[in-house]
């Protein structure tokens, strides 16, 4: 090593080397931080995904309002909750009338087709078929694995139908699998994240394909101008009840109900789980903090004499303090990285397996959110390590350098 290189030796460099002095202890410290990071990340991921799922769930139920023919609201709700097929029809003009009602931001018509009984993507069963208008849709879009609109002769399938491999990961080749629905060949081109709701058993097709099928074959009891429901997104600031009343007044023969019923129900069910997750996270952070304190107490106690020597060499308390903090930083950075990596593998790559094990409406964050959450988790884990290390390091700084130097004599 050249002189120039050695002169670059700084406190963080010494701290990094110091970690190698007692690899077992440094490893245990890093492992403790890794577990903290993984649990923190996992807990946040679950809470975040539950909340996102609730938001998306409300969106699927019409975001804010669902317009149905009078008397058929319960059929619609059954379909959305449990996938029980429904025969609900009303003219498509209703969608246009709803769109112009004061307070309505967006409308998305849907047409409930006949239930498909057969095999799709190697899964045999009864699958409700819903036709959507991809241009107007804001309902299933948050759930699509690939954020691309559905095109003609394509279908998107729910998570229960297939296209997941044995590890619970999206099995890409099956997306282009061919399926014959209602006498027409389609290609499976998109896949929905698991929701543990009726949508998991549903096949979605383009509304123009549905109308083409209906025009060709009257056995589906669908007229070319039919739709089943209109999903409505209300403008921010508008009262749901007022808009619902205005729609019912403007469009005869329809009933409007808020889509929040399901969300409220699920939210009530999930509240204790969320509280438990927060509590567990809090306890884990507390335990991690105590562990770091304990490990750092041992580290500084073991190196009391060295602290004395450093002080004798002219190091201020602040410099010695920084040196130990840097050691904590490196250990937590390594531990945090490892913990995050493990958490990402478990939660992102194997999300479908987890969702099979945990029957909750989970919807994992998108990549961008995941990166932000990862960064925040790392920062929190590092901060907890550093803050927990402060107390034992501070105590050792109070030691008289003379006593420290003579330690063990």
């Amino acid at each position: 090593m050249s002189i120039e290189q050695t002169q670059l030796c700084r406190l963080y460099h010494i701290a990094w080397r110091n970690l190698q002095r007692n690899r077992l202890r440094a490893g245990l410290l890093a492992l403790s931080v890794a577990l903290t990071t993984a649990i923190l990340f996992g807990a946040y991921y679950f809470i975040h995904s539950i909340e996102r799922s609730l938001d998306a769930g409300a969106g699927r139920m019409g975001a804010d309002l669902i317009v149905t023919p009078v008397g058929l609201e319960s059929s619609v709700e059954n379909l959305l909750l449990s996938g029980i097929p429904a025969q609900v029809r009303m003219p498509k003009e209703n969608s246009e009338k709803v769109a112009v009602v004061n307070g309505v931001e967006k409308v998305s018509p849907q047409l409930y087709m006949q239930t498909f009984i057969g095999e799709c993507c190697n899964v045999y069963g009864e699958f409700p078929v819903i036709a959507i208008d991809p241009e107007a849709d804001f309902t299933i879009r948050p759930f699509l694995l690939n954020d691309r609109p559905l095109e003609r002769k394509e279908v998107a399938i729910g998570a229960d139908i297939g296209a997941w491999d044995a590890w619970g990961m999206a099995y890409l080749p099956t997306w282009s699998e061919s399926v014959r629905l209602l006498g027409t060949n389609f290609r499976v081109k998109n896949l929905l994240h698991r929701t543990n709701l009726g949508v998991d058993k549903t096949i979605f097709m383009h509304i123009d394909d549905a109308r083409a099928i209906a025009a060709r074959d009257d056995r589906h009891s669908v007229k070319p101008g039919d739709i089943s429901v209109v999903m409505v997104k209300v403008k921010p600031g508008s009262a749901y009840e007022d808009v619902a009343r205005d729609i019912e007044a403007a469009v005869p023969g329809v009933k409007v109900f808020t889509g929040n019923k399901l969300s409220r129900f699920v939210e009530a069910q999930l509240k204790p789980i969320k509280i438990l997750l927060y509590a567990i996270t809090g306890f884990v952070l507390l335990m991690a903090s105590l562990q770091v304190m304990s490990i750092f107490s041992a580290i500084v106690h073991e190196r009391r004499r060295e602290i004395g020597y450093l002080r004798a060499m002219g190091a201020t308390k602040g410099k010695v303090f920084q040196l130990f903090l840097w050691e904590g930083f490196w250990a937590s950075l390594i531990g945090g990285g490892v913990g995050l990596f493990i958490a990402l593998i478990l939660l992102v790559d194997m999300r479908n397996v987890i969702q099979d094990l945990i029957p909750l409406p989970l919807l994992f964050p998108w990549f961008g959110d995941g990166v932000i959450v990862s960064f925040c988790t790392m920062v929190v884990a590092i901060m907890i390590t550093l803050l927990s290390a402060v107390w034992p390091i501070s105590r050792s700084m109070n030691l008289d350098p003379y006593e420290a130097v003579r330690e063990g004599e």
Partner: protein
Amino acid sequence: MIELKAIGKTYGKRNKQRVVLAQVNLKIEAGEFVAVTGPSGSGKTTLLCIMGALLQPTSGEVYMDGQRVDSGLTENERASIRSEKIGFVFQFPALIPTLTVMENVLLPITLAGKALDDGGSWARQLLAQVGLSDREDSLPGTLSGGEQRRVAIARALIRRPKVLLADEPTGALDLDTGNKLMELLQNLCREAGLTLVVVTHDPTVASKANREVKLLGINQEYKQTI
């Protein structure tokens, strides 16, 4: 260079007090080599640490280069004086095992946070003087006890101090190695014009000093032998 006026040091509180030093007066001139001797527990290391602004006396005054260092200074100011004016060599070399010899020698510069313009070449020169030029990239664990002490001496001199305070520098070394180390220490200090204060039990080491300060223990007078 160093002046101690009526220095007293007491450890413990109230009825468990132990007087280690009482009324010690000492003046050490620049470039002088002083040996501090005495039985165990007589306060030799305590006196050395008081001289080095590492320990505050219970009573008395300490002057280093005309500046009072026992009171009126903050902890950081005392650290600054230790960093700039004093080099310590302890009985244990206290090298950081994961840093190379060169990095250990440069450690006081790192801790001071102020780079010397010629820090690198001066460190190399010091290592040559202590006979370890070829070991600058070695880790301390691969050096013998004597070699580690020599690294510690080079480290103590890296900031070009005015005073070198050594506590049992030859302790735990065999006679031959100890003698060579003392010779090295003396030569380096002579060449640089440093004041050298050595705490020792070894009469051979003490005999090489310009002056011997003998501490006789609790409640006894100390005496100076020239």
